[in-house]
């Protein structure tokens, strides 16, 4: 958690309002589907805090969970934020935050790790969300 804006990580209501506004991207997800975000330092250390966006019957829920490393993080996909990246997103939380996230994924300040197998991601409805972030779903082919 060192070097990051704590208010950014704890603004669960703010993140929830973003997800509610972008609800169409999450509607195809099955109940229990989950996206995680961790700070780079926590990812490197293999433990820390995880910001979880979980699909529930009523929509998206935002919560903080303990992070115990890649092998045990209980999410479909995991975003790792370089220093300042999540704060930059949070600054646009009422604007086009996911558009900004797409650019962060391009410039390397945000990194996506795919935790669940492709078939599960497809079956569980992650495709709209990932494609909206400009992520090539079936290989980058660059």
């Amino acid at each position, binding site marked *: 958690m060192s070097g990051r804006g704590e208010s950014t990580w704890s603004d669960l209501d703010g993140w929830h309002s973003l997800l509610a506004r972008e609800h169409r991207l999450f509607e195809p997800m099955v109940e229990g589907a989950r996206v995680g975000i961790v700070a780079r330092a926590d990812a490197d250390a293999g433990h820390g805090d995880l910001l979880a966006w979980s699909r529930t019957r009523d929509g998206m829920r935002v919560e903080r969970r303990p992070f115990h490393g890649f092998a045990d993080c209980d999410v479909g996909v995991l975003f790792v934020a370089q220093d300042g990246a999540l704060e930059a997103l949070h600054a646009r939380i009422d604007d086009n935050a996911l558009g900004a996230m797409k650019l962060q994924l391009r410039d390397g300040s945000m990194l996506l790790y795919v935790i669940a197998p492709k078939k599960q991601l497809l079956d569980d409805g992650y495709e709209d969300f990932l494609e909206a972030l400009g992520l*090539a779903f079936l290989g980058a082919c660059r």
Partner: protein
Amino acid sequence: MAQTTTLKRLFEPASWGKLQSRNRIKYGACCVSNYNNRDGTITIRELGRTQVIAKTGCGIITNQGAYPDPLGEGKAYFRQVALHDDRFLPEFEKIAGYIHDAGAIAIQQILHAGRYGGIDLGYCIQPSIVPQTLPHFRPPREITKEQIKVTIQQHADAARRALKAGFDGTEVTSFMGYLLATFNSKFTNRRTDEYGGSVRNRGRFMCELIDAIKQVQGDAPLVVRLNGNELMDRWGGNTEDECFELMELAAEHGVDMISVTVGWQEAPESSIGRDISPGYWNRLAARAKKLLPDTPIAFGNRLPDPRMAEKCIEDGEFDFWEVCRPLLADPDLIRKAQAGRMGEVKRCIGSLNCLSRLFRDLPYTCTVNPQLGHEYDPAYQITPALAPKKIMVIGAGPAGMECAITAKRRGHDVVVFERASAIGGSLAGYAKNDLANSDDLLSVVDYYRNMAEALNIEIRLNTTIDTKKMRGMLHEFDVAVVATGARIDGMLLPEPTQPGLLVDALDVAGDHSRTGQRVVVLGGGKIGLTLAESLKHNYGREVTVVDSEKRIAGDVMPSFKWRHTAWIEELGIPTRTSAKVLAIGDGGVKIRNAEGAEEFLPADTVIAAVARRPNQELFHELEWMIDELHGCGDSLVPRGLTQAIHDGFRLGARI
């Protein structure tokens, strides 16, 4: 064949250890074909392909990567070849024979895909558990020290088999996230034992691998492919300096050639796509050559032109031009270059159709070379026509020109009719607006122009074919080929109430319509996006894209989908998806947006870039006016460049 003197360095013989290469061109095993059986045995389709590759004229030919382990942990593609057992040897012997018969040095690549492997297993192995950043791959397991020893031995055994099959040497690859790369890179190697930590420790696996293979190979050469830049450093991967430290380490262990490569599959930027200008990465090869002057350096990433390669060799930037995709696009490239006939080369346009198909678990094909992968198939052979015919091809786009050229090569008499003042069809307009690299796409049109001239195909421009025109030519032709393309289907949009506001995307692309400052593009497929990007980037227009689908770029090839969506974001082009167009007029477009609300988008110009419908009228009009009537390309079903070229070729090959 008359040999030119312009590419002297490229075509000079070169010593490589005890071997002699007839020139400085190495065919690189850029990606696997996926033509083989699920058990790793080689098919007749693969043998057909390798026979063509063997005859390309390269001095060194690297056969595609074979996985070395019986479990298939190293297997990246469903139909990748295997070399973990002697039972595979007979087919490898044939391939080595083809290469030797053609006068080239035969190298077998051993490819353990590591992070991208285990395609049949549901897991992959790598030094540490670091998940992949793309969904295509299998969840990782950490390789144990005992497994490391076994894996190294499997590589050495595969190398021994390759030599037994007749290959002159082998190659291992630390490219784009394969096993060797995952050890070398600190992005994926987070081990705390002697195989992790410092560059030297991370490189230990590579050094042990080189030592083990060289032990079984004796003085037969070993090539290692190493990243000059992973393009992963922002994500914690190796810096460029570390990549070169690893090259030094490989050289210390006596590797006989280093093939310098660029980028991981997962890198957030392009390395070989059309949006990278040719020659962009040459500096990495030059750095390797400067660092290791006594180690032969091969290079070819995004370096498709032999004339550029000649200059690089002349300047001492590398020793061997490593070329793959340009030879998939045109297996005669080297002969044409040597004869000074570069205008007749089908250039690799960097569409990455090949890789797109591999990541859909399909055999690779090539946009500009329909014969790739069909070398054994009679339907794809250009054979002399038993009864030469007079053929009229209507439409000089890619489908029509491909058909005309193929038919002419078979001995038919061909005339092309084109209503526009130049050939190229809608591709010409599309290419002009392509932000990636217009030159690549325009090269397709140039190729058709040059081939028409070389084959003496008559092209009648500014000539519209209709029933009246046809009546004046009755009995002049035996065959008509309708290759008239497609047009934007205006029926899918409401009737505009403001004259001049709505224009056709193809007219804008072809410079037949000008736009105002505020533009709304209706349709977020490849045509709409290409125009929107060009209008914003090249002309400073304020552009909004509207699409009825949930996501834009639905018809874009997977290799470029991410590129378009990134451009849209980077250029700040607003999009409205899941939107319905309600009205066009009164200075803009009224839509119902995804939230169900009505929204008015002001516009000086509205561009129709919705779905296309085929121009099929001539099929009916000509039906009773000519003996044979065929169609190809978008005039059958509107698709894209690959299908147009392939349709045209197939038709030309069978008329």
